[in-house]
């Protein structure tokens, strides 16, 4: 999240970037930055503005219990005794396996556009949050077309596959509504890039 | 001429499936299908028992029924005897799958047919097929039948007994089973000696 998102209205051209930013913020491990955005209301403002800009119904969410949010994140996306309902890897949604052909294609695509995984990122490069963040970087660099490819071809399939799982399994009141909202949002946003 | 062939000494094979799994990894064979599988059978009654561990795969028939049925010509026999598939030409019609009497062929999710190709990419580099290389009982031999000093020629020459699967079909397999544990030959087969 950037502070900007909270203070200026979303213009249509920014929708892609803002949506990607929200995806990145939502699916990163819940950290101090997310907490600050939630506490300050910046997160809620960004969500509301995106909803207004796209016509997608705004989600009703509330975070009162921060530790609960952290536990739910682990339960939904990391490790769960009953089975992780929504592994956060776009390649898994596309190929049914980790580091499969789609993950490899993504890697080549990002490399082609000069996006690298940061040294401190100890997870796969096709983690939903990482793909979204890469999209933000590309959009900021003026490569909306490339950001759109990430959004349409890599992120959207993950939402199609896993949004229902998140909604069904969420008990935090945060990930379920947000995932439902972002899933609809991504299917609304039209990039019109050549495939 | 080169006539590539493989022999499996059933007196040594323990049915461990290292060959099958090595094949799966080497050739990226997807889950759910196999180029190479193991059939384990028990005959007799306690305590007079025989167990046969029998790996099965494409036999690279000298006279392969799978090849002539192919409408696109993608199924062909290489000069060295490997029965091969040119996947670029394969239209996935499945005629060859039906024609193979040994169930050696399968359809891949990508829409083309696949099967054991004796690891031709390794053979072309002078290496052994993955199954032969890994087998921890060293019961698999591979090489040129026209070369009397190839490992496979030697193994066949020295074997107490040599069988092929369903010899009555006239397919003339190039996969030989040596030293069957049962005195009568391959379990479930009529037997037959080279």
């Amino acid at each position, binding site marked *: 999240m950037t502070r900007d998102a909270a203070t200026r209205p979303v213009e249509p051209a920014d929708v892609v970037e803002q949506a990607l930013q929200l995806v990145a913020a939502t699916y990163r491990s819940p950290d101090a930055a997310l907490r600050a955005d939630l506490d300050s209301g910046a997160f809620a403002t960004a969500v509301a503005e995106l909803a207004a800009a796209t016509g997608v119904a705004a989600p009703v969410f509330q975070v009162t219990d921060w530790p609960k949010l952290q536990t739910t994140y682990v339960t939904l996306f990391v490790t769960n005794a009953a089975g992780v309902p929504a592994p956060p890897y776009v390649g898994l949604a596309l190929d049914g396996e980790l580091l499969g052909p789609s993950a490899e294609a993504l*890697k080549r695509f990002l490399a082609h556009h000069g996006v690298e995984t940061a040294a401190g990122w100890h997870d796969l490069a096709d983690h939903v949050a990482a793909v979204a963040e890469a999209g933000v970087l590309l959009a900021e660099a003026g490569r909306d077309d490339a950001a759109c490819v990430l959004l349409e071809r890599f992120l959207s399939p993950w939402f199609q596959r896993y949004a229902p799982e998140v909604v069904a399994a969420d008990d935090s009141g945060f990930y379920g509504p947000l995932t439902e909202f972002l899933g609809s949002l991504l299917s609304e946003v039209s990039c019109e890039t050549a495939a | 001429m080169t006539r590539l062939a493989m022999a499996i000494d059933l007196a040594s094979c323990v049915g461990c499936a290292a060959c099958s799994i090595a094949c799966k990894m080497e050739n990226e064979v997807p889950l759910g299908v196999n180029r190479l599988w193991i059939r384990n059978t028990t005959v007799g009654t306690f305590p007079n028992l025989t167990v046969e561990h029998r790996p099965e795969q494409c036999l690279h028939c000298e006279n392969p029924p799978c090849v002539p049925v192919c409408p696109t010509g993608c199924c062909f026999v290489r000069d060295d005897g490997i029965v091969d598939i040119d996947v670029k030409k394969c239209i996935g019609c499945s005629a060859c799958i039906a024609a193979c009497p040994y169930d050696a062929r399968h359809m891949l999710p990508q829409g083309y047919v696949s099967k054991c190709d004796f690891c031709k990419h390794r053979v072309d580099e002078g290496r052994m097929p993955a199954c032969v290389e890994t087998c921890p009982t060293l019961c698999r031999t591979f090489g040129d039948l026209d070369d009397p000093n190839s490992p496979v020629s030697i193994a066949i020459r020295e074997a107490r007994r040599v069988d092929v699967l369903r010899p009555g079909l006239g397919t003339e397999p190039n996969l030989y089973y040596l030293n069957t544990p049962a005195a009568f030959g391959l379990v479930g087969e009529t037997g037959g000696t080279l």
Partner: protein
Amino acid sequence: MALGGSAQAQLFPDGFPNPFRAPPGKWFTKDDVTTSYNYCEICFWKCGIQASVQGGKVRKVDGYESNPKSRGMLCPRGQGGVATTYDPDRLKKPLIRVEGSERGSGQYREASWDEAYDYIAEKMNQIKFEHGSESVAFFGHGTGDAWFASYLPGAWGSPNAAKPSVSLCTGPRETASQYTFGRGISGHEQIDWDETDYIVLIGHHIGEDTHNTQLQDFALALKRGAKLVVVDPRFSVAASKANDWLPIKPATDTALLLAWANVLVEEGLYDAEYVDKYTVGFEQLAAHVAQYTPEWAAEITEIPADTIRRIAREMAAHAPRAVLPVNRHTVWYGPDDMHRMRSLYIVNVLLGNYGMPGGYYFCDAPVVEAYPHPALPLSPASGGCGGGSTDVVTDSPFRPAADRGKFFGTATAVQELIEPMLTGEPYPIKGLFSYGVNLFHSIPMVERTKQALKELDLYVAIDILPMEHVMWADVILPESTYLERYDDLLLQAYKTPFISARFPAHPPLYDTRGAFDMAKQLGERLGLGEYFPWENVEEYLDRRLSSIGSSLEALKDQGTIVRRGRPYFADWERLNRNPIGTPSGKIEIYSERFAEAGLDPLPVFVPPIEGPSGMYRLLYGRSPVHTFARTHNNPILMEAHGENGVWISTSEAAGLGIRHNEYVYLENQDGVREGPVRAYVTERIRNDCVYLVHGFGHKTPLMRIANGRGASDNYLQTRYDLDPVSGGAGLRNNWVKLVKGAPDPQHPPVAWLAREGSRA
């Protein structure tokens, strides 16, 4: 993420028209294939491998010729084990159990490594303050157990470090070997397969147990024409290769061995010259075994006396190139186990084969100096399958291990450390590390273990996968797999001792670490930094290798360094040295040390513990494609063997009205139920026992593929009988009945589960 230069690039890379599919072609056709040396960790045989990486993923592993363990070949597990690294169910980040949640309820939050280490160190110090450092126990299994079941507990000051590979596996054979030969059996059972002409396997499952080199040697020996006798209540794969199969009554093997000793002695078939030169106590043995006639043994074992005589004579005719190989898992029936192993060694000694071509060879680990460090305050007697079970804790300022006094041997018995967690006797154990030990699939009395875990103040699990017991821990430390990490050097005792190294094939995929790093980081937080003076693992390895004039860089290109061995007595005698480490300097057929301790100085037969009528003795063994309970979420291996079946004889099944492949429940003498599990109705087993392959029957939905497939032998082991000498837990004194009416669980195909269909 970081954005590099090429902002002006066209949308898709050149020659890459479809960005949504990787370029076609199999891995070996691509130009980015690289290889690195490693040693396999799918079982702990540790074969040398070369891993081929393409596209950031290991695509294939192969053996390599210069490594004496693989010699270019690999077993099925080694081939397919690679898939575990890419298992989406892996542990990925350090996790801390949510405060106030119950153990086993699985409520976790992510933590940084620093936070996790601090959390553990604080709790350990608290336990030390309240109960003493001995109150933290350390269980370990795998390469990293050197750190977590030996070094760290030694630095910290807890003798309660244990490995299941001792008292739940090799304990009896190691104790027997120490007291007979004054040496252990090596982790690579040192049978001189190349030279032997006659092999007698007793309950040894070569072929189903696919220890790579052993299987190679076994197959080559048979090919050379060696004769094979297999003693087993079950027609094992090895039995299917045998000239003679002796379907022995379970739990009577010692009687058979003593009768063989009787024949060899009575008929004067033993190697008198060898016995005279290398042993003590033959006279006592001769007098002792006079009572154990083949007729006596025939009654007990249900093997005809004539057969017993004939085999003994055949062995003698081939001696000294006749061998009864020691097997690995030797905790069978409890009180009898150490005696059975001593009887086995004594028959070998009568054949004159120990230290002789065609028998047992001598092997020692190659010498590479330790990285210099201050002496540890304590040397825990955790032993291991490589021997060392008589490590003695001397002059220790610490209390003795909590299992002391329960049995004679000194290697710590893992199952005896559970009780102190519950009772606080002889003193409480309040903390536990489990490094790679599957607490619910290796230690008998699973319910007791679960109760004990609830009593702890700290429970740390280090693992690769979210095994059921892992999801009970307070802190979960995810380990990198063998393909992602460095490890200590492998110093292998072998006919040609050798050194090999592990190089990561690629960086860790997730936020995981190797045991080496975890031990050092934790040690430093515990104020034990002086014991971890190395900078990092590369520097540590390089320094150690420099002591033999090599380097990490050199080993990177070489993989393995092979040394010359001294396999036979003749090799030692040339140097005027004696390989036998007993007090008498001779092979002790009669053990003075046992006599002094009030134990039987010569092996005796202890009649089997009998079970309730109408129940079958539960035997268990191995699958060629699985290791322990570790590989059952690996799709490749599970596709090859996806569920176990309970072997029952055709005639018993007919009596019970059970059909082949029908699902049944197994219910043990204490009413514990497992299953549904398929009945494998076969001629290949006796009527008085049933058999299960170990490692199946996982009960954690997180492991999608493993969950609920087959039955667990360990959950049915609700009792065990302690071997009073070695401390081994005899696990085969559990009995089950088959209960009809189990539903077909309709397991989905592994291929479907692996392709994440099951997540829906």
